[in-house]
């Protein structure tokens, strides 16, 4: 007791200094989130959708614009809890852009005859009488939008959190809405709910690891702020076992989010079960956010222990690439296949992370951006390939699609080639830059593993092309519904970026390399 008192007495309460300019993008999003909650609560159903969309896009665009105004800023603010630095801004920016595309997909209304892609009432029993009622009445639920906004703001905070505690909070702010969104598909409700349950339980499980690791690290460093931890590590290099174990548990939490083997198993189930729009949004943005946090933790806090974590990360990266690619080969559901592909891609990005060099950071950032756009585009295509039972995600229904509708088929082929890393697509430049960084840091064997994995991965990407173009369309071949402008924009954006970043990557490469390192 006395000690506590001793600590607590005569500490004058001073206002923390907050650089509101630097965190304005975040505040805008949070504010918008709150407002849209109020909208849900107060406004009549009819008018909600329009207003919500207005708020969402308004907020996203506004904070994006704001980020463009503060590109020069490099500050640690809010008592060292938030670091707004180059990488953070880059990632926030890309998260926001991708979020806009995701929102476009989620706002799509014209692909599903019975309304939008979300359940009219998430609470209603699947197949129950009142669900039919709601559907018949054409109810649209708009609760997704506040959830969406909070998720985005969580990500935006996650990548700039300079304090493990804040990182934990933002992790949850990001995750909790996603758990719910995953469960709101209009079709295949059971799968959707199952996805939500698994995602939630395992997510909670992982965040438990994360926070316990934070606790241990706090026990070692007497602080949860990354720079502090780093300085303590350098100050007393001995007896760091506590920090070591703490770091391990933190990594578990983060690697879970990036879907690295062996913390990946939630990914396929969730990606498959969740509404395709949400999957696309999630796949693109969560990757960025999680990798942002992962790199910040590894570089800023534990950069001094590089030689402790690098070997372990080698193994994880290798496993992630191989397992992801290999299992993907045997998939017949295209969403599930892309889920495994995203696991494999996470492995490739890890190669860049392990390089632990400016080049590696830049490479990873570029890869994340490239991957985000390609993936979201791919899911956009999946969301418009439908038959009477809804989205036709089974590969067998894609037979001859490329001949039935060459444009969409061609675009999807482009995405596949991009993910496979064929030159003149963004994916190739991404692979190139991370491999270059890894070789420069001497991780030759890792690169060779990566090469083998890319080959295996290439197989199932090109297999999709085989199915789409090299087989005759049959009676069960799905058809492409003409989407509204929303999905069209997302699709076009994805395709364009995939191509442009492959042919003229220089501007973005400059961007990511000029972003510099994380500040400490």
């Amino acid at each position: 007791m006395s000690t506590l008192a001793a600590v607590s007495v005569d500490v004058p309460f001073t206002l923390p200094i907050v650089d509101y300019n630097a965190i304005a993008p975040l505040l805008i999003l949070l504010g918008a989130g709150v407002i849209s909650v109020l909208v849900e609560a107060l406004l009549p159903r009819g008018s909600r959708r329009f207003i919500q969309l207005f708020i969402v896009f308004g907020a996203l665009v506004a904070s994006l614009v704001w980020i463009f105004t503060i590109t020069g800023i490099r500050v640690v603010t809010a008592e060292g809890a938030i670091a707004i630095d180059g990488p953070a801004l880059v990632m926030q920016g890309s998260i926001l852009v991708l979020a806009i595309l995701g929102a476009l997909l989620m706002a799509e209304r014209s692909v599903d005859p019975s309304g939008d892609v979300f359940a009219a009432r998430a609470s209603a029993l699947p197949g129950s009488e009142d669900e039919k009622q709601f559907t018949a009445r054409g109810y649209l639920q708009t609760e997704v939008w506040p959830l969406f906004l909070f998720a985005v703001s969580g990500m935006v905070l996650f990548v700039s959190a300079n304090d493990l505690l804040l990182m934990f909070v933002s992790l949850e702010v990001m995750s909790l809405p996603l758990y719910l969104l995953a469960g709101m598909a209009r079709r295949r409700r059971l799968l959707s709910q199952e996805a939500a349950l698994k995602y939630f339980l395992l997510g909670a499980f992982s965040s438990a690891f994360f926070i316990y690791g934070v606790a241990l690290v706090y026990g070692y460093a007497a602080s949860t702020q990354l720079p502090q931890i780093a300085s303590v590590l350098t100050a007393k290099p001995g007896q760091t076992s506590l920090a070591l174990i703490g770091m391990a548990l933190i990594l578990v939490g983060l690697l879970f989010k990036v879907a690295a083997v062996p913390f990946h198993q939630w990914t396929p189930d969730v990606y498959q079960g969740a509404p395709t729009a949400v999957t696309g949004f999630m796949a693109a943005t969560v990757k960025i956010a999680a990798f942002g946090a992962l790199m910040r933790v590894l570089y800023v806090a534990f950069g001094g222990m590089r030689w402790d974590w690098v070997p372990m990360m080698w193994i994880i990266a290798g496993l992630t690439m191989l397992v992801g690619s290999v299992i993907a080969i045997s998939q017949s559901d295209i969403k599930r296949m892309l889920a495994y592909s995203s696991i494999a891609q996470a492995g490739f990005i890890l190669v860049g992370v392990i390089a632990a060099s400016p080049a590696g950071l830049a490479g990873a950032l570029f890869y994340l951006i490239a991957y985000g756009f390609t993936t979201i585009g791919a899911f956009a295509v999946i969301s418009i390939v439908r038959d009477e039972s809804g989205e036709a995600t089974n590969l067998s229904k894609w037979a001859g699609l490329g001949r039935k509708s060459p444009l969409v088929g061609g675009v999807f082929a482009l995405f596949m080639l991009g993910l496979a890393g064929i030159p003149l697509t963004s994916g190739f430049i991404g692979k190139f830059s991370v491999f270059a960084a890894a070789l420069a840091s001497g991780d030759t064997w890792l690169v060779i593993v990566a090469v083998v994995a890319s080959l295996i991965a290439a197989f199932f990407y090109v297999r999709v092309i085989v199915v789409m173009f090299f087989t005759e369309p049959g009676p069960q071949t799905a058809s492409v519904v003409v989407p509204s402008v929303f999905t069209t924009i997302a699709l076009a954006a994805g395709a364009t970026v995939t191509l442009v970043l492959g042919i003229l990557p220089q501007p973005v490469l400059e961007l990511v390399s000029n972003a510099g390192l994380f500040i400490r």
Partner: protein
Amino acid sequence: MNPANYVVLSAVLFSLGAIGVLVRRNAIIVFMSVELMLNAANLAFVAFARMNGNLDGQVAAFFVMVVAAAEVVVGLAIIVTIFRSRRSASIDEPNLLKY
């Protein structure tokens, strides 16, 4: 009494929670085990706060509690929908998504 013991205790609690997640079928209980793990973290925070002689740990505990509460809200919502649609809270029941 040596605060380090509390750390040990927290570790034990954490492990118990983890094991609970693995062995129990009922979603609610699994979820409770997770909460147990979070609280183990809280205990560790407090104990470390004591050992390090600063308040951050105690503050952290509060944060964790809030987050835990939020998790409960979301979690229960999900579990309840599952329960209503499947008439059981077993987390082995929903097994459509695999391979």
